[in-house]
């Protein structure tokens, strides 16, 4: 390669490198037929005889920390009235979601299973009322309420008025490692 214009070569190389940088993958359609939340994702259970718990659902990695999924989850959180019981994480009719106490598990697949199936003590079951892609998006957003996601993936203000400061400006306390085997 000619070195007569080293600066232009360098510039072209940088542009090429930046163009291949993908911040995250956005899937508008999801995988409607194949996507099922494994129902074995129950709260931290005793698995008699097993040395380690079963591996995490691979789909969890796709939604965990994904900024567009979290933003969609924030929209659905308000639209589907999750905010009506859980407010902005403080709780009310529903439990607080911004603390580190999880009755039914705080991993993304456990939260998704809670939303899908409902739980005793009053969490409604959303199976059939939301698609599973939407449920995963909600679970990703719920994780951000307790500060468990990367700061650069967390969504800023929602589109509605709010008496609470935006998530990007609030200090969240992280989950204590002892509470769950897998995070």
């Amino acid at each position: 390669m000619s070195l007569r214009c080293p600066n232009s070569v360098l510039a072209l190389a940088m542009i090429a490198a930046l163009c291949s940088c993908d911040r995250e993958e956005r899937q508008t359609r999801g995988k409607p037929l194949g996507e099922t939340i494994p129902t074995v994702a129950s709260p931290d259970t005793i698995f008699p005889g097993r040395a380690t718990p079963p591996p995490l659902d691979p789909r969890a990695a796709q939604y965990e920390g994904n900024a567009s999924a979290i933003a969609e989850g924030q929209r659905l959180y308000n639209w589907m009235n999750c905010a009506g019981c859980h407010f902005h994480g403080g709780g009310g009719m529903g439990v607080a979601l911004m603390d580190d106490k999880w009755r039914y598990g705080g991993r993304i697949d456990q939260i998704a299973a809670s939303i899908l199936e409902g739980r005793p003590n009053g969490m409604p079951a959303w199976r059939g009322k939301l698609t599973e892609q939407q449920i995963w998006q909600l679970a990703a957003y719920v994780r951000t309420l307790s500060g468990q996601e990367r700061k650069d993936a967390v969504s800023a203000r929602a589109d509605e008025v709010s008496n609470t400061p935006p998530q990007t400006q609030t200090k969240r306390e992280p989950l204590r490692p002892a509470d769950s085997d897998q995070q």
Partner: protein
Amino acid sequence: MQRGGAYLSLCVTSCAGVQNAFGGQGAEDANFVRLFAVFMVVCTVMYLIVSAALVIAVWRRRQATLTIEDRKHHETSAATRPALIVWTVLIAVGLVGLTIASFFTDRSNAANGSKPRLSLTVTANQWWWDVEYNSPDASKIVRTANEIHLPVGVPAQVTLKSNDVIHSFWIPNLAGKQDLIPGRVTDAQLLPRKTGLFRGQCAEFCGVQHAQMALDVTVESKAAFDRWYAAQLQPGRPPANPLQLAGYRYVTTRECSSCHNISGTPAGGHVAPDLTHFASRRSIAAGALPMNRGNLYGWVADPQSQKPGNHMPTVGLAANDLHAIVAYLEALK
């Protein structure tokens, strides 16, 4: 002047009549077309004079060979001074004329909008329009989506709001653009003068599907409008056969009811277009697809392929459910 302007506009535009800023079917747009014609004439005349002056100057320069040493290079033609005076007067008259024309256009628009007899509220969402006809009697409020019907000759006041980002309300045949800004209330006045079918469009970039956020506008006689309004007040038609009943059951208990509203049924969602009289509309998904059975199947089965990124999810319906849902939706006239 009017006919000249109209001829000009015919020459200028070749786009379809439904979304045509030179259509002049609304009072405000008609004013705009008139004003546009005035501006065109005045500016064309000015342009021609300036071009002529330029041509003359270049030609005269080529004729004479004056040099710096020649004392006569300061010589001004006898015609220069009066020409300049006439030119200045022409500019002044032209500008004043344009200003007065603008002023009268504004006054005319304000007068047209001063006594509205119909009131609507349009709330823009990403990427659809929520339309509500206001009424002093609360039980006579009509709510629809992505379409506006207007009686001809009746001035209408449209209150504009937004639920998320800035959009812009633009029905080119009837009036100019007005932004819908979250947290603020703006308004627009419409006074349609001719009946017809028109198309409105969101005119402020509002996200990934901004391009597919259109409005179907129907301007009709007062009697036809009253008939339409009375039909809109009715609850959704109940299912008439077993397939529609299956569709009704799905729509009112499953994913659809989380977001959509159909009056008279348990589906009461407020975050998506109202579907009570869905099948009577001309298009699906805010102008994205014309309303017909095939498009309806395609839309319900996989909205993300038609309008990727919009907020209606692809559910992954089983075939029988899809048939039932489309059968029910088609009946919601």
